[in-house]
């Protein structure tokens, strides 16, 4: 499934210009030390975090997109960095569990 299709099916709000690409898995974490060691290439990263370190780590593992849950919003410099890397940055008003359930209903794991 491509990012744009996922956005449409889950009602995610895009907050940057991203490079549309296939997503291949899901990883949930609020710790960059965990993300950098465990998240996989082309994954959807679900998190509560909004800081720049998150993008720096997501770039190293080549995550496809980041979904920030519970309506939290990153600052402009975080959005700008995500745009530079092509990583899609999205927000959802849902909590982590509810959003993750949506993904499993769409066949993503």
């Amino acid at each position, binding site marked *: 499934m491509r990012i744009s299709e996922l956005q449409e099916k889950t009602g995610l709000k895009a907050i940057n210009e991203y*490079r549309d*690409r296939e997503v291949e898995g899901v990883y949930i974490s*609020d*710790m*960059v*030390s*965990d993300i*950098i*060691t465990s998240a996989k*290439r082309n994954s959807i990263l679900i998190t*509560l*975090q*909004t*800081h*720049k*370190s998150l993008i*720096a*780590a997501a*770039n*190293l*593992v*080549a995550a496809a997109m980041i979904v920030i849950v*519970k309506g939290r919003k990153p600052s402009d410099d975080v959005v700008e*960095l995500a745009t*530079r*890397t*092509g990583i899609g940055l999205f927000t959802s008003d849902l909590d982590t569990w509810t959003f993750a359930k949506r993904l499993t209903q769409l066949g993503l794991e």
Partner: protein
Amino acid sequence: MNSCRHEWFMCNLRHGFLVVEGCWECGARLSFFSAEPVPPIDEYREGRHFWFYMGSFQSVKFDLECRACGMIAGLDDVNGLMLSDCNDPNCQVGALVNQQSSGSLVYVALCADSTHPMGRCVSSGGIEALNQYFNRNLEGLGRKVVVVPCVLCNSIDKCRGTVIVDVGLTEIE
């Protein structure tokens, strides 16, 4: 000479704290990795330095091992990675940042002693392995990362960048 086209994966994961200390006397900074449950905060004298605790951040250390040949690239001398925001053309890191094409980013591998009194920094083998490992993830995406040792910074203490450490955990509601 090893001709293997290494397929690195992370091994020897250690979770702990990146502890940063400063010297009251000369302003130097020191960092080390502590696997203790609570990071040490004691002040102490060491030669001409008098170190004091500046802060600590939850972090992780790892080595890289090659699936193909079994070689291990030890990264004990890497205390952290910093995404560089430097754009100073007179700094080697800043010059590299300015040379990158859109989407490609420069990361600085941080060693223990920012003043490099003995001229030592992260090993060239470690830097090469980190570049190979992270760029393997990015193949086909039209961008790359460049990992460089912190000795290339004019002043790592004044360098602009984002260190990859766990921050903001206490702000999560």
